Structure formats: structure tokens, C-alpha cells
């Protein structure tokens, strides 16, 4: 079985062909934003040439389609129909999209406090503007009771032909404003995502080798089917950074359970944290172009520090501050302003472009300061490394402050500190060893650093999760992602064990239905179980179980230089 991973990035489109645990071929081609399909096909064809025989082939695709549509505000005109109930005034969130409020109130346990108003739903036809192409329906506490969203969506579908996204289908967790944003974004990019999948389905027919399946990369570093990406396109945002992180996980030979991933690029450095062998997730969800969503996403921290960053010299202190602005092309590559890359090239730490050009430029600058040019360039290398170390410290001190809600966790907080640095990116060879030195940590630079993202896409596996909320006092179980809210057969005996079992069964069912192979283990990511006491008597329990297919990556062999 061959797997091709393709990551369509802002600058380049990378492709990797893997077989078993080996990288067979890699390709890189400039991304043509005007014709994404063409540049993606080019990269695909490059690696396809290395496929031998008629072995089956899978394609793992990380696209910037949704990300770009959202960043550029080019989704279709979308209106949100919200059912906020009492609480925070919806107007105070200042959402940058049109929103219609309906009456109706569901409380924290999913009980209907006041019903929808049939008249208001009727009026929606007149209130939704004619140019609106997609709708999102989102209610407060819809993850505890999706019925209001379902009723409104059903009524709307009688006359509205565009996409209608419901909040509960997209997120089983709390956070009404994020659920609104998530459903809005999902609806606004759904049409273009559908065009995209239709195109790939057609391409599949034309390939010289049999393409068994095409899957799409998600922000959580996992994959989803084309069909699921049509339903939940918002989950494909920010899959590029996730693909790089998955690539590091696939390629690293680091045996430590905790390490920090440092991806040094031209403009920015992206950090991610691996704790006990798993990449940490963003606490609530992805943030894209200022939009806070509930889309599960790997936690990444982007720092304005890269090979092409601007150098600011403080003459009084004799120190550099690097970034966050970009200086432009390095001098060694014909640019105007000196950059960290020029420091590395001049000092012989890297071989890029014309070393002489860089040395001359350093020479001129240093003369005016009464330093040797080597001293000046070395200061840049040191400042870059120190700033990186600072950013890492900042990330981890934040992680160590993540709120904890039980006495036992406060007493034994999870150990998150890294024991190693794993780097990638062009300038990694220069900075990662030094960074390891400053932090007193082992270090490693992953092989195929230039195409780790494509390898990561190829190595990624299915992710799928659901949330089960059982309230045995009310005798109700809710699984928002499935739109399920039903009576428990025997609420009195429904204990935590049964709740776990039910959650796992439902997830397995969902996986089979959605066409995922059942080889992946189902496990519990989060659970809560509270006794409910009313008037000094235990009247029931609330169980919350979040279960998912165990994520992870295929291990890929590094090819010797790891």
C-alpha cells in the first residue's frame, strides 16, 4: 500500500510518497493560488511516477482551501440564526456577521425552560436576506439538548436550499460564542469544499494507478473522509501546521515522552508541545484570523522569528532584537537587508546563496560600530537563540498555568516540561543545537525537514470523537455530534461503566457508518461523573464521557541522519 501525503501551503505544495515505514519520493512545487488544483496535481504527478506496479494507493490531502476562504473573507454570504436564551447579551460579542435571534431557552442540563416561538420561525423567511447562501443554527446549551436547533433547521430546510449547519453536530462541548463562530464558518465554506471534493472524485477516475481512498487532513492532525469534509469543512482549517507537527512525530527518533517541536521558517517559528507522547491540543479549539472556534486543533504557538526576520540593533546595549517583522530576502540571496540567515551563512554555519555578499554587508555594518564583523554576526545568532528559548519558556509557563479543577490534580499537576528539542525547517541546523545547549536539553533535527509536512499528511490517521452526557436524574442521554437525545432504558442503574461502554459503542458505530476502518482503538479522553444530591438525598448522577479513536501517526524511518 502506498500513501501519498500532499500539503498545499502558502508558498509551496509538498508531496511525499510513503510505503510501509519508508519515504519513497518527495516533491515540491510552488503553490498557484489562482489554480490550486493544477499545482496540487503537479505535485501529485511528480511522486506518482515512483509508484510501481498496481499496488493500491491512498491520498492524504492537506489543503488551505477553507483556511484561505476564511482568512480572505471569501466564504458565501451566511446568516446565523441564534437561540441565546438569557445570559450574556449576544450583541456584546460583536460578531462580524449577520445574526438573527430567536426566543427559546434550554438550561445547563438540557431542560427546555421556554419553547421556540412558531410565529418567529415562520417570520424567518422574510427576515433572512435574499442574497444569503448558507445558514447556521446555534442554540445555547445545544450540546445538552439539540432539539431547538433541529426544529429550526428542519423548518428552514422546507424552503431554504443552501447549506444549513447546526451547532451541536460540530461540537459536543460547551462555549456558545465559539459554537456560533464554528457553525458560521462551516456554512460559509461548505459550498467551495463541495466543489473541491467533486473535483477530486473526478480526478480519482483519471489516475493511472487505482486510488483506494482520498482523505482530508484536519486541524487536529487526523484525517476525515471526503464525505465528512463536505459535512464539516471547518475542521480542515489550519491542517498545514498540523501536518508539520504530525511529520515530526512520524519522523523523530526522540524517545523522550515530553519534547518541544520547533519549526523554524523564514518569517515565523512555530512551537508545539508533546507530552507523554501526545501532541497537546488547544484548550478550546482553533483560532483562525481572530475567529475563536471549537474546532479541535493541535496547540501551536507562532513566534515572529525566522531566517528572514528583521534585525534591530540597540547601540547602547550592544544587543540585537530580532523580528517580529520580516526584513525580506537575505542579502546572500540578493536581498537588501541583513537577516539571521546572512549571519549563519557568513559565519559558515549554513551554505545558502553567496557567502561573500553577506560577509561584505556585515563588514560594512560592523565597521561603523567598532566591532569585528564576526562579533556582530555572532550576536545575531545568540540573540535569535535566546529569543527562541524565551518563547519556549513562555509557552511552557502558560501550560503550567492551565486551570485544574480537582484537589488531586493541583497536588500532582501533569508534568509538561520538555526533555528534548526536536527541530525542523531550513535554519534548524544552525539554531537547534544551540537552543538545546541553552535549555540543557537533548536535541534532534528531523530528517526530510523540508518536506516533513507532506510526510506528516501521509502518516496521519483517522480522528473521530463524540461526547456522551447522561443525566440519570432526568433519565436522558445526549450525544450531540449524532443529534441524539433519548430516554435511558434504566436510569437508576446507569453507572459510569455503562456510560463508558455506550460512548465507545456509539463511536464504533459512527466510525463504521462513516466508512472508517475499525482497526483503531477507541479510548476515553475525558470523563466526569458527579453524584446529584437534592435535599440531602442522592437522586442521580451526571456522567460526561468524551471518547475518540486513538490518534497517532504511522512511524516513518528517518533515512539515517536522525
Amino acid at each position, binding site marked *: 500500500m502506498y500513501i501519498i501525503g500532499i500539503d498545499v501551503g502558502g508558498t509551496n505544495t509538498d508531496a511525499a510518497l510513503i510505503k510501509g515505514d519508508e519515504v519513497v519520493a518527495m516533491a515540491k512545487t510552488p503553490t498557484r493560488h489562482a489554480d490550486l488544483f493544477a499545482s496540487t496535481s503537479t505535485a501529485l504527478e511528480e511522486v506518482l511516477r515512483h509508484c510501481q506496479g498496481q499496488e493500491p494507493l491512498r491520498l492524504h490531502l492537506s489543503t488551505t482551501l477553507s483556511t484561505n476562504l476564511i482568512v480572505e473573507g471569501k466564504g458565501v454570504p451566511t446568516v446565523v440564526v441564534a437561540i441565546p436564551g438569557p*445570559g450574556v*447579551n449576544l450583541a456584546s460579542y460583536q*460578531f462580524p456577521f449577520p445574526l438573527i435571534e430567536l426566543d427559546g431557552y434550554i438550561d445547563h442540563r438540557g431542560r427546555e425552560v421556554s419553547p421556540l416561538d412558531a410565529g418567529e420561525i415562520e417570520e424567518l423567511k422574510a427576515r433572512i436576506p435574499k442574497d444569503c447562501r448558507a445558514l447556521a443554527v446555534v442554540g445555547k446549551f445545544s450540546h445538552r439538548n439539540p432539539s431547538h436547533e433541529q426544529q429550526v433547521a428542519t423548518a428552514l430546510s422546507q424552503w431554504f436550499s443552501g447549506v444549513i449547519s447546526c451547532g451541536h453536530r460540530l461540537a459536543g462541548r*460547551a462555549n456558545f460564542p465559539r459554537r456560533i463562530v464554528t457553525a458560521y464558518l462551516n456554512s460559509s465554506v461548505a459550498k467551495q469544499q463541495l466543489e473541491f471534493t467533486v473535483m477530486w472524485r473526478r480526478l480519482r477516475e483519471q489516475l493511472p494507478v487505482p486510488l483506494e481512498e482520498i482523505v482530508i487532513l484536519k486541524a487536529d492532525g487526523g484525517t476525515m473522509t471526503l464525505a465528512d469534509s463536505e459535512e464539516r469543512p471547518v475542521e480542515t482549517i489550519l491542517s498545514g501546521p498540523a501536518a508539520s507537527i504530525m511529520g515530526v512525530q512520524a519522523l523523530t527518533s526522540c524517545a523522550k515522552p515530553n519534547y518541544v517541536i520547533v519549526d523554524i521558517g523564514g518569517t515565523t517559528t512555530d512551537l508545539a508541545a508533546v507530552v507523554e507522547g501526545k501532541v497537546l491540543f488547544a484548550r478550546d479549539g482553533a483560532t483562525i484570523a481572530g475567529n475563536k472556534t471549537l474546532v479541535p486543533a493541535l496547540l501551536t504557538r507562532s513566534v515572529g522569528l525566522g531566517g528572514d526576520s528583521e534585525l534591530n540593533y540597540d547601540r547602547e546595549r550592544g544587543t540585537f532584537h530580532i523580528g517580529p517583522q520580516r526584513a525580506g530576502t537575505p542579502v546572500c540571496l540578493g536581498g537588501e537587508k541583513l537577516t539571521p540567515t546572512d549571519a549563519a551563512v557568513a559565519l559558515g554555519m549554513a551554505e545558502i546563496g553567496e557567502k561573500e555578499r553577506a560577509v561584505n554587508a556585515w563588514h560594512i555594518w560592523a565597521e561603523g560600530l567598532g566591532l569585528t564583523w564576526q562579533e556582530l554576526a555572532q550576536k545575531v545568532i545568540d540573540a535569535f537563540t535566546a529569543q527562541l528559548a524565551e518563547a519556549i519558556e513562555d509557552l511552557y509557563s502558560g501550560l503550567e*498555568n*492551565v*486551570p485544574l*479543577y480537582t484537589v488531586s490534580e493541583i497536588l500532582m499537576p501533569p508534568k509538561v516540561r520538555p526533555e528534548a528539542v526536536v527541530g525542523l525547517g531550513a535554519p534548524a541546523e544552525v539554531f537547534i543545537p544551540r537552543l538545546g545547549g541553552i535549555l540543557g536539553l537533548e536535541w534532534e533535527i528531523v530528517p526530510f525537514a523540508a518536506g516533513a509536512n507532506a510526510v506528516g499528511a501521509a502518516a496521519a490517521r483517522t480522528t473521530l470523537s463524540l461526547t456522551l452526557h447522561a443525566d440519570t436524574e432526568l433519565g436522558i442521554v445526549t450525544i450531540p455530534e449524532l443529534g441524539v437525545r433519548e430516554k435511558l432504558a434504566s436510569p437508576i442503574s446507569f453507572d459510569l461503566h455503562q456510560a463508558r461502554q455506550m460512548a465507545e459503542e456509539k463511536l464504533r458505530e459512527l466510525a463504521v457508518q462513516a466508512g472508517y476502518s475499525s482497526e483503531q482503538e477507541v479510548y476515553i479522553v475525558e470523563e466526569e461523573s458527579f453524584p446529584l444530591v437534592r435535599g440531602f*438525598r*442522592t437522586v442521580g448522577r451526571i456522567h460526561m464521557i468524551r471518547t475518540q479513536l486513538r490518534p497517532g501517526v504511522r512511524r516513518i524511518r528517518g533515512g539515517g541522519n536522525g
Partner: protein
Amino acid sequence: MEAMAENKPSVGLVFFPAFDWAISPTHPERQERLLYTRDQIQEEGLFDHPAIKEFRPRLAEDEEILRTHIFVPSLAKHVTESHRIAAGGTILAADLVVDGLVGRSFALLRPPGHHANRVVHGSRGFCTINNEAIMVDHLRHRLGPDLKVAIVDTDAHHGDGTQDIFYNDPGVLHISLHQDGRTLYPGTGFLSERGGPAAYGQTVNIPLPPGTGDEGMLMAMERVVLPILQDWQPDYIVNAAGQDNHYSDPLTNMNFSAQGYARLTELLAPDIVVLEGGYSIESALPYVNLGLLLALAGLDYSKVQEPTWQRQTVSQSASLTAQVAQICAEVLSLWERRSEADLEEIFGRQDFFERRRHIHYDTDNIYEQQQEYIRLCPSCAGWRVIYTVSNVYPTPSAAVLIPWHVCPQCLKEGESHYQRERENTEFGLVIWHDPRTDSCKV
């Protein structure tokens, strides 16, 4: 949402629901208490609102707790990890404000503390150690003994523990609004309780009749609390924010609503808010905490409302309003004329003022007897000695307490009294308590 962002978050939230801790399985102080509050705040998106930043509490150290309390027989016997987290979280909330990291802070945590007295033989009113008092002493330790802190206790129960700890402390103004002690635990908090000889008038009690709603509570804020604060000019205002005045609370008989709490918070503009009681965990707490948090952050709370709210439940009768107005007038007049009081008449002309008390610990069913002597000193608050004995620790103990601003004479007298009692074989424990130097030793 982004438009509301400022340079620094306006509210630091130290949220600690202690989801694995209960006094006993069906006790009001149980795992479930802040569950629905968590659900509500999370669903409203306030944990990641730019105006609000959440912080993880830390554990309070022995010396921070001993700066305030005297334990019989020992700290270790009473103080558990959960108490340390609640006290440490409250200290953190204050530090966030002092360090300028946030504008205001809210220690939304449990277990509570305002019924915990200076001397601790066990738990009273669900409280073992006094979170606010430990925090206030921490602030003075950090910022100097001249600091003036006002505590406004809006829990439905009288803040008797906090009152006890600061009743002779000129650096603290303690105002408690509560359901009249003749109708509710702990049965104290009357107008006549006005503080010790060194801080007379700085203990202010506003007992409210059962049935008082938003109108009466806000009247007391506007007519009494705000003018007194304006007059006294504290450096920091602390709100001991119990939420059991709520109309749905099972333990009290008051008629306050979430809107009332939010408005109260807006009027009071406290620097640090600390949760106390409140046991209507589903019908009140999610909405009260939401309203309070929004008001504290200066956000719109106008649409916050309990599912069970009805105008008639929270309205109060005209006669009740008149009664509250009368109490307000009396309290304000006592405050205004506090300097006219004849202290010799009240506290005597001897060298010492003596106070004897019986203290009941309802949670642990302990009876304590206390005898206290305060040195009536013209130059400082005076050294004190407390003799204490209880049915569980029947060997008497003695504690010598030194005030924050002690005069040389009182320090000398206190030291020699401490030495004398140490030689007295009658006592199980003889404790030296000096918050200035952290030399609180047994």
C-alpha cells in the same frame, strides 16, 4: 468579542470548584456545588473572553495560614489540601491585583472561610480557615502594616469569623450585611457588635429582615456601605460574596436575585471578590456568578436571569422596605458618631479589657470556651492573651497575640507574659502569635 479586548484583562478569575472534594457525600459543600456554575460560564464563553483571564490557584503555605490563625492542637490536625488551595487561590487573587496583572479579581472557589475564627478547634459553618483574613494578612505582610482594607461581607450569614479575627484591628473595616441573626445561623451580627477598643466602630453590622430582596439589599449598599467606604478610604475593597441571599437558597430566607447581585457588584466596585456560601447550586449559583463576573468585568449583564425568576418572588413589601430604611439610618448614625463613643465606659478603666465567650462549631459539634484579655494601651492596639478550651481538646491552651503596630511596651509585656505562661504547667499549648515577624510559634 475582540473589540472589547484591552491591554490587560479587567478580571482575573481564580476558579477552583474542587470537583473531588466534599465535607461528606450529601453535604451542601460537595463536588457538585460549582458544577453548573462551571457549565454556565463555559457555555457563555467567559473563560476565554479577552476581558477575563483564568488562573490556577496555588497552595497556601503554613506561615501564611499561621499569620492569621491559632490552631488547637495543630495546623496539621485541621488544614487539608483543599483548604490550602482555597486560601492560596484567594491570596493569588489579591496578588494579581496588587501586581497590576488584572484590574480586579474573583476567587470563585471552595471551601469557604468566613465563619472561621482566629482560634480553630474545628470547622464552623462549613469553614475551617478564613480565606479573606489570610489574604488580608498576606497583603499587609507584603505591602506593610499601614494598609487599609475594607471587607464587605454580603453572604446571608453573618461573617462572624472574619469579624472575630479583625474586631480589634485598626487596619481593617468589616461590614457585614446578612439575614438578622435572630432568624439564622450563626445568631450574631447585631448593631451592638461594633469592634474592640482599638477599632471601635470599624465592625459594622447590617442585619436585614427575612424576605429582603434586591431593593432592600441595594438600599443598604447605597445608603450605608458606599458612604462608609467613601468616608474610610480603604486601599482595597474585598467582597466576601456569599450567594445564599438568593430567593432560591435552601438554607436562608432572603429574596435576592442574580440581577441584584450584579448591580451590587457594580455599585461596590470591589478589588477582590471571594466566594463564600450559596447552596442553591442549580437555580442560583450559575446565574449569580455569571452576573457577578460580567459586572466585575464591566460587561453587559442586563440579560442575565434565572429560569425560575418572577417579579413577585423577588419584590418586597413596603413595610419591609421601611424596616430596612430604618436599620440603614441607625447603622449610618452609629458610624457617623463612632468617635463620640466613650471607650472607657464601654471597655472599662482597667489595664485590660476582658471578654468571655462560648463558641459552637456546628459542622464538627465542638464547644469552645474562650477568655480573652486585651491590654488597653494608649499607643497601640494592645497585646492580647486568649485562653481557650473545648470538649475535644480539654487541656487549656494560651495564646499571646501581638498587633501589627505594636508599641515597645506592649511587645515587652507580651513577651514576658508568654514566658510566664510557658512555665505554667496548666497549659497544653502556649502560642506566640506575631504576624509582623512571622514568628507564630508554639
